């Protein structure tokens, strides 16, 4: 399933016919590629910052771009119940960039500067928090978001409209009770919730293989026991991911019922900097396979890929240089924001 992308084929048809045969709009295909490359360049820059001593710890989502970019493009972005509530884990940078977030925020968080827009230098890379887009604070426990997400979905069910709750996590985190909580609370008879439950299955929990943990054939099979519509998809194929996410989201938005979507993805730089953050050559690289496909379909070409890669690498390097001189939080700032006060 992970290698479902078609092998490259020579192009013989005229360009207009090729475009007609494309599964998604040509501009969208190019836009997704651009965002995937931008996200990869960001994560690779973060890793480099860690190696250069410009950050204490790296964790992120390189290898998940083919799934996370379409997710970000399909989110209904905004603040409040009319928009999607987002309970992410820490491998979601590509989703945030696809939503339009400025990558400099992630670099600032990596460098734990006072200007870090998500935590003011308090939290690890990838721990986003954006109230204006309903991105609730990402935390390091790998399961708690599955317990919290039904809460925003209950509020949205009551509110009506087409805003939904989206929660993401990894395969390892589904072993926690919170994942079962999410399934139970999302599917109470008569109180089914508008929630898209996502599991990005990279087949690993740090060093423990999913094959030694998961007795279920697919993690999505667990949804069936709760009468939750469920599916396992190839998360390394952005076209498949876009189409499947759109279908799942349409269902959740329209029917106000849960959907469990398992995306099979790669983990291209290991769990985190604690395991070295070195490139893993034997897993599918979704950008490489997508580029082969784009080329084969005649959508664009190697020169464009190279240009994109160079452009984003350069931009991330410039942003990293800018962030390097920004101030650290002051020691007395530890006392800020313990309690919210009425203004």
């Amino acid at each position, binding site marked *: 399933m992970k290698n479902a992308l078609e092998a490259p084929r020579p192009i013989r048809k005229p360009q207009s016919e090729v475009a007609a045969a494309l599964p998604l709009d040509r501009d969208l295909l190019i836009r997704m590629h651009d965002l995937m490359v931008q996200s990869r360049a960001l994560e690779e820059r973060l890793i480099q910052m860690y190696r250069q001593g410009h950050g204490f710890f790296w964790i992120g989502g390189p290898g998940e771009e083919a799934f996370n970019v379409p997710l970000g493009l399909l989110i209904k972005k905004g603040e*409040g*119940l009319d928009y999607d*509530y987002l*309970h992410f884990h820490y491998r979601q940078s590509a989703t945030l960039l696809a939503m339009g977030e400025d990558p400099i925020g992630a670099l600032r968080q990596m460098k734990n500067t006072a200007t*870090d827009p*998500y*935590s*003011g230098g*308090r*939290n690890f890379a990838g*721990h986003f*928090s*954006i*109230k204006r887009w309903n991105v*609730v*604070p990402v*935390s390091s*426990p790998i399961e*708690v978001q*599955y*317990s*919290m*997400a*039904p*809460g*925003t*979905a*209950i*509020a*949205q069910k009551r509110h009506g409209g087409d805003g939904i*709750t989206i929660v993401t996590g990894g395969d390892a985190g589904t072993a926690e*009770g*919170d994942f079962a*909580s999410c399934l*139970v*609370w999302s599917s*109470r008879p008569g109180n089914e919730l508008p929630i898209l439950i996502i599991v990005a299955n990279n087949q690993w929990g740090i060093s423990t293989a999913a094959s030694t943990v998961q007795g279920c054939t697919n993690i999505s099979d667990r949804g069936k026991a709760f009468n939750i519509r469920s599916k396992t998809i190839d998360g390394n194929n952005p076209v498949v991911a876009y189409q499947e996410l759109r279908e799942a989201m349409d269902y959740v938005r329209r029917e106000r019922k849960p959907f469990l979507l398992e995306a099979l993805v790669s983990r291209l730089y290991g769990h985190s900097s604690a395991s070295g953050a070195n490139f893993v050559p034997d897993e599918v690289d979704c950008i490489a396979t997508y580029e082969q496909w784009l080329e084969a379909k005649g959508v664009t070409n190697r020169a464009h890929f190279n240009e994109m890669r160079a452009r984003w690498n350069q931009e991330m390097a410039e942003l990293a240089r800018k962030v390097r001189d920004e101030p650290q939080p002051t020691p007395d700032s530890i006392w*800020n*924001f*313990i*309690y*919210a*006060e*009425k203004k």
Partner: protein
Amino acid sequence: MASMAQAIRMALHYAEENLGVTDVFGEDVGPPLGGVFTTTQGLKTAWNSPLDERGIIGVAMGLALAGQRPVAEIQFCDYIFNAIDLLKLAGGTYWASNGDWNVPMVVKTPVGSGIRGSIYHSQSFDGTITRLPGWKVVMPSTPLDAYGLMISACQDLNPVMYLEPKALLRVRGEELIPGEPSDDRTLSKMIDAPLNDRSGWVPKWPDLQPYSVPIGKAKIVRQGNQITVVSYGRTLPLCVKAAGAIREEGIDAEIIDLRTLYPYDWEALKASIQKTGRVLYVNEDTEITNFGEHLIRRTIDELFYALLAPPQLLAGKSIPGIGLADSLEMASVPQLPDVTAAIRALASEEP
């Protein structure tokens, strides 16, 4: 006069009518039961959750983050421990997001001994919850304070842990709740669910008035000059009783009901201890890393030269649980004779 359970119920009714409370939920919180201690009977926003404490706390957080005003119940605090990291997260979210997201939610849970609840219906939670920064922690000892503290909790912008001393939930108060009818029976007919068929029952709420007890304010329950006794919850009335009895021996004790454990009213404690020079802290949580130990540490740090005797703590024994047999419960947590003896000993201690 209303019992504490009725007072909490009336406060929640006031809060769902006037303060924007959207959800009162937990195990058996909605109809037909309305809570195992009846504190949520007849509330229009009360609903039954799955039997899942992590889900309850997580959903309360989600509701709060989505702009709702949830009051979640954990049926007994003995069952809250599997949600401890979610409680930590709720307390820390505002800080971790550098002020981006606050989490206005109330968690209420019955605590402590007094109903012969054995190992899993008698534990305390004050020691543990005061170790989770970002929470405000309150614990009433009278129905009127229960009413006023709940109303404050439902207006706070932060997570508030509302500890219900289960031994006092059925005890009637000595002060009327504003709007409450003066006759017990009238009140009961209005707001207590019938014991048999409840399917068609709707409460008739009295015309309740706003009344709040500010979070962070202690109350001097009894004035005195010779010794300060600080307590909260079940042991507070024991301290008052003991002080009354011991007055005949010429010991004049000042009793302070802390009411808010965090952020606590240090100014009130300080003023009293500076006056008396002696302080006894009383609670029933286990004594090792007990919240009272913190208060002793601060007393020593800041008031050492005002002290006439070492500050003392009377607390529960550090044992794995409270046994069912009457003799075991009595021996495990402070009872009236223990409190009396402790006040007497400290009041008469000479260097």
